[in-house]
């Protein structure tokens, strides 16, 4: 996407690629972006925490949460971070075939997670919890929905990388692109860990 610095150990950094921090531009840019995203999710997590004790009517968290189910989907998302790491390692050593397997696995795990969210939301809706039922419904669905949107965007990104690899347009020289995508994917996973802990696990 930009004047990328080649990240493999084999390439040598000549003086034109020297960066003040030692980090490539895209990587540094992604870190800053992810830092700002922390504050974005922080706003919605704060709203959720504030409203947890202010439910006037309608279903409460304890009544609707299915912790075992959400634990399984959370675990799958966590595993997708592992496959992401494996995908990056594969492309760094120019193993295109393994790269495609692992990046596809990451995307698929993400899709399973999203599927689990969809199922979970439908269940909650049938139990009487909607966006407009109470402040719990509002803050819960908006927070997890926005997170799900971020996961979905990540899945699209990963599948694009997979498609480019199948067309021989993504090689070891582009490992940095995969690394940057990985940073985003890991972030989305970390946010979920925070949400899962704060929203699901810690009782009112």
């Amino acid at each position: 996407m930009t004047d990328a610095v080649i990240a493999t150990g084999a390439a040598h950094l000549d003086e034109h690629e020297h960066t003040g921090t030692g980090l490539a531009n895209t990587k540094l840019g992604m870190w800053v972006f992810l830092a700002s995203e922390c504050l974005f999710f922080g706003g919605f997590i704060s709203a959720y925490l504030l409203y947890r004790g202010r439910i006037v009517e309608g279903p409460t968290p304890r009544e609707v949460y299915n912790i075992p189910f959400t634990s399984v989907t959370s675990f799958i998302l966590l595993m997708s971070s592992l496959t992401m790491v494996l995908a990056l390692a594969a492309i760094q050593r120019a193993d295109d075939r393994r790269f495609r397997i692992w990046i596809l696995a990451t995307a698929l795990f993400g899709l399973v997670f999203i599927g689990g969210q969809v199922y979970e939301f439908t269940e909650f809706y049938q139990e009487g919890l909607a966006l407009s039922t109470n402040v719990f419904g509002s803050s819960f669905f908006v927070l997890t929905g926005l997170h799900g949107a971020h996961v979905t965007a990540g899945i699209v990104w990963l599948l694009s990388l997979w498609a480019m690899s199948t067309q021989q347009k993504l090689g070891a020289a582009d490992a940095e692109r995969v690394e940057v995508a990985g940073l985003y994917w890991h972030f989305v996973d970390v946010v979920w860990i925070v949400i899962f802990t704060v929203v699901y696990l810690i009782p009112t």
Partner: protein
Amino acid sequence: MTTVQETLPAPRTVGLLLRRPRATTGLWSWLTTVDHKKIGILYGGTALVFFVIAGVEGLLIRLQLAGPNGTVLTAAQYNTMFTMHGTTMVFLVGMPLAVAFGNYFIPLMIGARDVAFPRLNMFGYWVFLLGGLFLYSSFFLGGAPDGGWFGYTPLTSTPLNQGFLPGRGPDFWAVGLIMLGIGSVTSAINFIVTILNLRAPGMTLMRMPLFVWMMLVVAFLTAFAMPPVTAALLMIIFDRNFGTLFFNAAAGGDPLLYQHLFWLFGHPEVYILILPGMGIVSEILPVFSRKPLFGYAVVVFSGIAIGFLGWGVWAHHMFATGLGPVAVSAFGLATMLIAVPTGVKIFNWLGTVWGGSLRLQTPMLFALGFIAMFTLGGLSGVTHSIVPADTQQTDTYYVVAHFHYVLFGGLVFAIFGGLYYWWPKVFGRMLDERLGKLNFWLMLIGFNLTFFPMHILGLQGMPRRTYRYAEGMGWDDLNLLVTLGSFVIAASVATFLVNVALSTRRGAAAGPDPWDGRTLEWSTSSPPPEYNFAAIPRVGARDDFWHRKYTEDAQGRLVPLPAGGADAATATAGSPPGSGHAVGDGHGDGHGIHMPSPSYFPLVMALGLPILGYAAVFKNPWLAIPGLVVLLYGMYAWAIEPATAED
């Protein structure tokens, strides 16, 4: 940095459907450019147009308030005017002007050829322009925003058909601001990576021009402040359109949550607005005093301190909301604390000027005006930090006076100083000095006539955001004076525009260094070539360019070096070693330097956003589809397009 890095084999159809643009002159080149200098000019010109528009809105406000029970505007029109005046000045003038200067001068000042992400830079501009047009299209499409620039809930968050504010104004406002926020964050990321990564060899952080330091702090503030307000605006949009209950008190929601999130953004925002101005003034004062900035390191650290402390004072905008004595005491004390690094800067600026050899040309007049006016604004801010006193002052004309002193007397004065200072570098022509002085004096007089009386009006009980006031309150004369002052301001802005027009026709040609500057941008031609520097300079000291021209004698007095700009070999003892190549060294004509190529896709991708915006405001899913398609197509094509086209 900016040499060719082909990381992909060239796709056969570049960018899918669109051939790579090749224009280097003419309108088309401006639409597809990724050159930070052109983008800086675009930001600046667009922001100045919005400045005039917001100024007219201010004049209409003042015409309505010139006397009691005014009938120039209806209440509905007035409420729209003050909302749009504030929203425009903050988001479409103040922030973009800083980005304009930052864009043009950060790469030049750090010895780089462009920013880290040239196409992202252009994307940021398009989002700014399209976001501004989107916001103003509301006048013709169902009502302009009228909930105030801060949009408190539940006034702005109830659904359209039950709304306390009829019409789509709040939707345009919330969606428009989210759009503009996206542009701001991309600029911020760009500046951070540029400043941290692309400095010329030898330019350590503590050798950077102070303006660059301030822009670095501002970029971090922007990247971290926009997300909470984006969250708050999304909550408004959800409450209005999807039935959520975030700010519905009957359901347990809390309107105060909005204020916390908004001001968590809002306070850093005011530092985002003023720090660039402080940076500009910190550049002008040393040049026109012919001595260095007094206490550079302290000024840097004060800026960083303000950046940090600014996150801890947000609730001083909420002293009347009933937070309780402990909370307001804490925020009051934190607010007093932040006055300390601010004061330090003022004294350091005065220390810079003291003992100098001052040239009182227009940029310097504005910089000195900044010191005085910003100080007054800062002091009224200190009175705000005294919580009990603030419960009388907040929401009255006293606070309107305060923030106009810091934002107009501060930021706008600094911007005008910067315009006069850097105009020759950008356009190769001087602005007329006599018109410049007239501009300054009209602005100083008009500004004080307009905003000083507001302190008194506020203390005498006149609330803000009021479309009329009663007879017999004793406010008539001061309000009339304020209105007259506002027209003097208008005259000063008109003077500037006349100056620009005349300079374009017959301004004196400016050489590379008309002011005898200190920083690297003055080592290039006026305007600089596309590649900025024929050879990237090697920096040996702060104000490296100055040290190639001058040294000091035994008493520390200024001594010019023979044949200014000569290389280190002829420097006398005392000049710093490693002073860089002179301009003209190396490839004089820039041959062999590859710059990033122009591109359509920042514009294409940016176009997706207003389409999605209209879909959101009018709740029309059919519009959302083309919006998404355009956005995703632009994003994808951009991603696979190489930064630099094959020759």
